[in-house]
């Protein structure tokens, strides 16, 4: 019998795909039924994701740390849970009733590829965002009339891809899901898009593939590393036994010496990366062997030993083995980090690799734009948090300032270019570039030692900014969609006077505009403030342009506001107010924008322990 969390998480990932398959059974004429079916499927996925949140929170809340405090127990961190699960698996300890929200099944044994899923606050919050935005996007898709079946199936398939990428703990599995979501998006833009849709879709695919190729190279490069001292020693013995059987000329002892263990596991690769960082920064003496399968540093453990090697490993041999590998060279680390960073940063997107985004947004139909802005961009930020930074911490810390600079350039450049737009949708696309720059900046604000909590603010801010941007950007793209349905153009200079005929629409838009602008009390403010607080502590030279960008942001958004909602315009005077369906999309977004802005703890209480753990792991490496 499989573990319960395996069932939950697998169901969460594949439920949309199952519903997509179910769509094939519908007769072609039952268009309305297909819509309801898809709506039902996304609603089910949303409910499932919330169930997982409840389960995860219960796990978090029932495990207490040494001081008796819940939620911050080191053993409830993703790394600790994964280590413990791997160790149990290697020893054959049954885990039927495990409530650790980590699961691992062999998939392609020959290449050590696992079907490994797991959640922590970082991935789960983004997964909930995904299910929510997809659900509302399906509600927003009611007006799509051409090939409804294919359209809805692709949206559902896309959701499976994204959820899989967020939940995957195995690099290869992650990569598969990452590519799975590329194709539906390509088709959705290319078939249901606007006038220049084929070019936009091509651009989207080429840019993203360019990034993916980098990630693929890094994936293979990292797989080449021998991580035998970081995985459970029972696993090493098992592989040694296999080697011995395959090659009888070796004695068992020799086999044990010679065996190499390779892994796609994020947690294991992260351990190796951290060990490399200690070696490369001359802190070899801090490397230590764990006494228990799962042990994690606490915030404030800044100068003590860093227990990275698995219990039973020989510390000296392990260090010697590590240093003999190419992974332990600066060039290799820089290369890996560069490939991963560029790969994910294309998705974020960073300047100058952002060029696909405005085209894709402008051509994509409204619901696809919502998913693109609300969810797909977050995969870039998530990749940086989950993959690039923890696996190559040394290069990340060496390059932190430049990474921050990339973020700041995005913030300022995006805001400036947004100000120069006359197309409503393009303006929003560039504002996404600007807002996502805060994510990169917050991650890069690497402060260690006694100032590590400033970095924790930055990473928390980056994550919160992703959630907030997911809400405001999706909602604003829908805002444009609503007005496009009435005016059939997106030219800012030809709108005006919408407040009078459509007061409800304008009021909801106002909430979202100001949330996007970062008004206190609304969601956009929270993340930006934390990121800037961290950035100032990290480098005032990076923080000052970010602070000044709040003026630019107010400038372009209010200018757009003035041109769309203020003034008078006979052409817009008779526009009908929001329909109930349209209101049903916008109201949840507006309510969430207010809720997250007033009470960020509604997600912070379960995302923040994961982020704190993430920061504690990395900040301890640089005293």
């Amino acid at each position: 019998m499989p573990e319960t969390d395996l069932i939950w998480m697998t169901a969460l990932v594949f439920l949309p795909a199952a519903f997509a398959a179910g769509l094939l059974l519908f007769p072609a004429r039952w268009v309305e039924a297909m819509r309801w079916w898809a709506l039902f499927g996304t609603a089910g996925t949303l409910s499932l994701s919330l169930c997982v949140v409840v389960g995860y929170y219960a796990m978090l809340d029932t495990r207490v740390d040494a001081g008796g405090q819940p939620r911050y127990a080191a053993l409830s961190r993703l790394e600790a849970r994964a280590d413990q699960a791997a160790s149990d698996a290697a020893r054959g300890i049954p885990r039927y009733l495990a409530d650790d929200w980590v699961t691992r099944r062999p998939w392609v044994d020959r290449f050590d590829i696992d079907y490994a899923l797991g959640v922590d606050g970082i991935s789960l919050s983004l997964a909930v965002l995904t299910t929510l935005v997809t659900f509302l996007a399906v509600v927003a898709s009611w007006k799509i009339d051409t090939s409804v079946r294919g359209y809805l199936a692709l949206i559902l398939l896309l959701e499976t891809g994204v959820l899989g990428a967020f939940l995957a703990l195995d690099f290869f599995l992650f990569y598969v899901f990452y590519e799975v979501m590329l194709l539906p998006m390509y088709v959705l833009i290319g078939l249901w898009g606007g006038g220049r849709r084929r070019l936009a879709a091509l651009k989207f695919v080429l840019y993203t593939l360019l990034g993916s190729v980098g990630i693929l190279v890094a994936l293979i490069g990292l797989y080449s590393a021998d991580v035998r001292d970081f995985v459970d020693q029972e696993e090493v013995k098992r592989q040694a036994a296999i080697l011995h059987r395959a090659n009888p000329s070796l004695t068992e002892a020799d086999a044990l010496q010679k065996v190499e263990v390779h892994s796609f596991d994020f947690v294991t690769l992260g351990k190796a990366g951290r060990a490399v960082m200690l070696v490369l920064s001359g802190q070899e003496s801090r490397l230590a062997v764990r006494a228990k399968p799962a042990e994690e540093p606490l915030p404030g453990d800044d100068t003590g030993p860093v227990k990275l090697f698995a219990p039973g490993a020989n510390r000296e041999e392990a260090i010697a083995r590590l240093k003999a590998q190419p992974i332990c060279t600066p060039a290799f680390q820089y290369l890996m980090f560069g490939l991963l960073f560029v790969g994910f940063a294309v998705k974020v997107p960073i300047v100058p690799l952002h060029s696909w985004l405005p085209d894709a947004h402008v051509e994509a139909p409204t619901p696809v734009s919502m998913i693109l802005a609300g969810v797909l961009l977050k995969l870039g930020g998530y990749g940086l948090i989950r993959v690039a930074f923890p696996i190559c911490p040394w290069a990340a810390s060496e390059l932190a300032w430049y990474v921050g600079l990339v973020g700041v350039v995005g913030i300022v450049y995006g805001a400036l270019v947004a100000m120069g737009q006359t197309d409503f949708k393009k303006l929003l696309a560039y504002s996404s570039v600007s807002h996502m720059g805060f994510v990169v900046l917050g991650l890069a604000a690497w402060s260690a030692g006694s100032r590590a909590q400033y970095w924790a603010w930055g990473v928390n801010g980056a994550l919160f900014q992703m959630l907030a941007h997911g809400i405001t950007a999706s909602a604003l793209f829908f805002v444009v969609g609503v007005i496009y349905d009435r005016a059939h153009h997106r030219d800012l200079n030809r709108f005006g006077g919408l407040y009078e005929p459509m007061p409800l629409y304008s009021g909801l838009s106002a909430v979202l505009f100001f949330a996007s602008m970062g008004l206190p009390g609304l969601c956009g403010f929270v993340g930006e403030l934390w990121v800037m607080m961290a950035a100032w502590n990290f480098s005032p030279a990076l923080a000052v342009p970010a602070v000044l960008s709040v003026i630019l942001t107010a400038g372009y958004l209010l200018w757009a506001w003035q041109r769309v909602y203020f003034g008078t315009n006979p052409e817009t005077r008779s526009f009908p107010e929001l329909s109930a369906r349209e209101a049903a999309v916008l109201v949840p977004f507006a309510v969430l924008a207010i809720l997250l802005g007033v009470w960020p703890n509604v997600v912070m209480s379960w995302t923040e322990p994961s982020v704190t753990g993430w920061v504690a792991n990395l900040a301890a490496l640089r005293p």
Partner: protein
Amino acid sequence: MLDWFEAAPGRLYVVATLLPLGAFALLLVAGAVKNLCRPARQEGGRASSVYWLLGGDHPLRAGAYLATALMAVSAALAVGGLVWFLRDADQSGHAARWAERVEWVRVGPPAGPHDAPRPAAALELGYRIDHLSAILFAMVTVVGTLIFVFSLGYMADEAGQRVEDHEVDRQTPRPGHFARRGRYGRFFLYLSLFAFSMLNLLIADNLFQVFVGWELVGVCSFFLVGFFYERPSAARAANKAFIVNRVGDAGFLVGIFVAWSALGTLNIEELTRRVRPEANAGTLTRADPGSPAESARPIDRPGSDLLLYPAAAPAHRPGEPARPPEPDGSMPYTLFVLMGLGIFLGCVGKSAQIPLHTWLPDAMEGPTPVSALIHAATMVAAGVYLVGRAFPLFAPEVLLVIAYTGAATLFVSATIALVQTDIKRVLAYSTCSQLGYMMLALGVGGWVAGLLHLVTHAFFKALLFLGSGSVIHGCHHEQDLRKMGGLFGPMKVTALTMLVGVLAISGAPFFSGWYSKDQIIASALGYGLVHKEHVLLFLLPLVGAGLTGFYMFRLWFLAFAGRPRDEHVHHHAHESPRVMTLPLVVLAVFSVGVAWGSPPWDADASYLGHLLHDSEPAAADVPFAEEHHEAHEVHLVAGVAALVVALLGAGLAAAMYWRSVIDPAAIRNHVGGVYAFLRRKWYFDEVYDAAVVNPTVGLAFAAAAADKRPTDGPADAPPRRFDLLTLDGLLTAVGQLADTAGRGLRTVQTGRLRGYVVALALTVVLLLGMLWGLTSQASGGR
């Protein structure tokens, strides 16, 4: 229930703050539901009945009454709270009873009972009531209630089903008259949100929460200035107000970040203890960078460090003398100065000080009650309040900047006010100028004087604005002073109450403005006597007092005295209804007596001033002992000088605009250049447009053009031509290169066998040749 208040009576203030928010939420939900049901209003059914239940095509009046009632309750709570606080303030340990704080968000596990608190671990929400916040809270709620009541009458037009806005027709001429639905409820919706934000700002005990209130009042101001958003001028003014304020807010953010990063907390009390511990009598301690804390000597030169002390209150054992705390860190002094400048820049924006004052006169596009509440009495005073609140965080250098900013503002705005002809713009510039007085007072250490003026000014400026609103209402939305005159006859209550306001702002004895302005001028003189090089800080406010007398009396005479200059306006002029004149009378009473003390002829005896003195920070007291002493000595001289100058100004106004002894036109012609300069408001707007706004917008369009070429037409294929002038084109060129290369190579694949054979043969020959060359080289080498 009562126990809950007894435990921490400050909760009264929390409730009073949240009441307007409740009104806002109710009105918001009601409005949203109504508008959602509106499309179905003709169809019958449930949605339609909800629509008609909520007022139907008319705006819902009940919402406005509800908002006003809740505001009145809030005011009653505030007054009750003030009384309670004043009775409680003599008891020991009252500070702890009137303050609470909770964590809003934190990073990392909560500190255990034995752990030292980590710096910068949590952002908090909290309140702290002292004399200053209690008095200002009462002032804001009382003035706010009066203005809510006034608005019930002033905005009555908006309660109609159809409102014609002739200003829109004038600004955007189109065939037919512009008409829209009334927005009665929406006005009170915004006003309630504003009241909540402002009160939140007042009770906040930390800079973060102040910033939250700061931005929220800004957005309310945005919507209220742009209330008549069909008028392009109003839409522009709303944007300008918000964006100019954001410039200040960016500075405020920098101040917050410095405090957060260097001092590790945002709680104002803790920040004060970090830099000016009580045992050091509120002074800053500076030391050589890197020197050990024990040997820290006070030094005073650039490049030094500021010593920091523990944020926690020192533990007192009864019977033991308080020991000076040990420093536990340091920060560069220049950073401390930067922090002060940053916070002050926020105050400059909010309080419309030079150079960020340009938004306030334009903000007069909003309805007049808004101008009275937000742009005269409360929101613009928030900057002054924050300077007073964060006073210990300002280095002496920053205080000097504050003083000069205030002095420059009070003078420049007063000169502009001399020549304005729009009744509200005169008052707007007068507001800038009076706020300048307050800033100046704070900068020269006259903490009580500045904040006393804040309170008195709130009453008489609200009175003046509401009076002007009554005039505008009575004259059917005519705001031009040149078309008024002789309105005393039809509008006696308005004229008399406004006269009270004019006397109060000019500093006539026994009116509230006299007490506060007297103290300001005395503080400035005292400062000027101690620091001879800064004598300008005394001269400018003195001249300003004369200018104030002139422009205020000019306004009053132009509006109410003399003969009607426009028969049409005069003919239709009428006194406003009771609901509007009653607030005027109440405010007039406050404008006279709010600062009285015993004896009333002693400006120093103001009771309100004494109350404010109780919350004066040590930083405004000890370091300014000498200046305060001088100010006390010369109080009478300063007062007489200010009075004489103000009388001169008022007399000149009377001679020009009442008795017509002097012809204003002649003077205007005589000094045409100066007149034009003042009419153009010192060309601030023009310079900003040319130096900041247009370059930024230009840069934005240039950036947009450099980013991507606008795509016209339906061409949906990869572009053939290279475009190396845009970022997008450059990246596309990489793809195009690959594409071109592929096309080029395709021509080689002809499919003709002969060609392939030739190529094959040539390759074989070439390879053989290379092989031969290599082997011969190798053998030759051997």
